[in-house]
């Protein structure tokens, strides 16, 4: 395990560096000059040059890159061109919204999808099994923002049970309000996410139900329930875990749309603002942190898979979904 961990960690670092380079280069391809955002419309060439100098965008690209990487190495995400505030603390406070949102939605989605996917497979010839499969078909076709709009209309505007959007100004110092304002966003993401998860759980369960080892266990006297518990659960979790990693990562980054529906001050809305204002340090900071999170999640998913599945030994990354 130890050499594997070492190699997998090296892979993570290389990926991170690669991703940073791609990120950096892609951003510099953005048309428009960030200095424009700093100066008023009729600014003189000297003022623009001064603005460029103050944010360092007049220096050669390799120099800007090494400067940024050097900052990153010391844990500094840079300073916003627009607000002149450090990006790091801002990202930190945004994570207070995005991380609970993502994790809660993820947990809820798993809690829905695992039993629902199992029933959809095991009871596939009954009406409720078919209904579950149909519901997941419908779920993957529903755009997440539209589902959010409908939930807001029903539960916030009509029923008035929950806030339609926003986050308390004092954040988690008002825990009741903070939780209330996250309920609908969490449910929105979880419903859409569980729709696709149900399909994976269902097909993993179908594979197990048709497997020879389950038949062997039952042929030698295990009850169906016991055989599923001892053999089915573990085997079905192998493909599901690899999908879970990808789902979690994409929820984290896909939160951008849901945060926009509910006007939540999360990482996603910070990114959207950053893109609109050509605020490179903000975009870079947010994307770097998200990339790191995505890679770490992938790392964790691979580790869990290797612990479950001894056949993966000797392979660098985990199985594909």
């Amino acid at each position, binding site marked *: 395990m130890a050499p594997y961990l070492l190699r997998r960690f090296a892979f993570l670092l290389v990926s991170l560096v690669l991703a940073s380079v791609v990120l950096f280069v892609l951003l510099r391809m953005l048309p428009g000059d960030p200095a424009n955002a700093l100066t008023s419309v009729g600014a003189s060439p000297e003022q623009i040059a001064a603005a460029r100098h103050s944010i360092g965008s007049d220096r050669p690209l390799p120099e800007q890159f090494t400067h940024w990487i050097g900052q990153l190495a010391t844990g500094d995400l840079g300073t916003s061109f627009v607000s002149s505030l450090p990006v790091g603390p801002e990202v930190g406070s945004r994570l207070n919204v995005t991380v609970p949102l993502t994790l809660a939605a993820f947990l809820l989605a798993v809690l829905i999808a695992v039993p629902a996917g199992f029933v959809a497979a095991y009871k596939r010839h009954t009406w409720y099994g078919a209904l579950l499969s149909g519901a997941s078909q419908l779920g993957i076709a529903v755009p997440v923002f539209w589902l959010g709009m409908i939930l807001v209309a029903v539960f916030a505007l009509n029923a008035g049970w929950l806030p339609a959007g926003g986050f308390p100004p004092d954040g988690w110092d008002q825990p009741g309000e903070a939780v209330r304002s996250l309920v609908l966003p969490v449910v929105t993401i979880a419903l859409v996410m569980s729709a696709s998860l149900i399909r994976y759980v269902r097909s993993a369960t179908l594979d197990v139900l048709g497997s020879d080892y389950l038949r062997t266990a039952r*042929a030698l006297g295990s009850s169906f329930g016991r055989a599923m518990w001892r053999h089915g659960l*573990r*085997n079905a979790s192998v493909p599901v875990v690899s999908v879970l990693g990808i789902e979690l990562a994409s929820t984290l980054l896909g939160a951008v749309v849901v945060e926009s529906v509910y006007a939540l001050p999360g990482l996603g809305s910070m990114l959207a603002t950053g893109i609109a204002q050509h605020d490179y340090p903000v975009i870079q900071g947010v994307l770097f942190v998200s990339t790191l999170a995505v890679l770490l999640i992938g790392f964790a998913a691979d580790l869990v898979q290797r612990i479950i599945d001894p056949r993966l030994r000797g392979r660098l990354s985990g199985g594909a979904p």
Partner: protein
Amino acid sequence: MTLLDIHGLTIRTADGHTLVDDLSLTVAGGERLGLIGESGSGKSLTTLAVLGLLPDGMTVTGSIGLAGTQIVGAREKHLTRVRGRDAAIVFQEPLTALDPLMRVGRQIAEPLARRQGLKGTELQRAVTRALEQVRLPEPDRIARAYPHEISGGQRQRVALAMALACEPKLLIADEPTTALDVSVQAEMLDLIDTLVRERDMAVLFVSHDLAVVARVTDRVLVMKDGRAVEEGDVREIVRRPREEYTRALVGSARRLESALDARRAR
């Protein structure tokens, strides 16, 4: 005393194809019966029907009495009690028949614990003993291995050990050597022969290969297209096959036997 009594067994798919047609056979306690036929003749389905493990949607008519229990139409709860205790099975493909994610030792421990009520170190010793009985070298190492880490022949011995751990009255062997290298087939057959003799177990041995069946069983039933074509003493059938189909089987078995003899003589 009749241990297995199949009478008028008919198996149909949901769209009405008849896969096994009015099959009747009996196996007495301690007796060995070979079930022979080409693939698709319905012999494997018959073994699954005996255990009540047919795929969904297949319709069974007729009667299967196993150690006094009527299998056809029995509830799952009753079937669970019968499986393992009255009949245990070794399947054809040892790689997929074992759980790929569980160490071999734990897989053998499961039936041992259930049938013999063993726990802890006692159970571990029983696992080692079970692996030794099927002539596996280094039983402790094998017990810690995962199925993909041992050879096909070793896996099939593990599957046999699991079936024997149930201490069944009837051992069903469904093409247990077909997936193995020719070089280990003979050893496997001798092993089954010896272990079953020691335990005075009845055997239902399924194969497409008459030469293989003849090594283990005394009596043989030839199946074709879901029907019993011919039944009798193995030597009798080999010497004087009555049906055209049986003659063809005997012919191919002869050729194989002589080839094996030539190999052994070397």
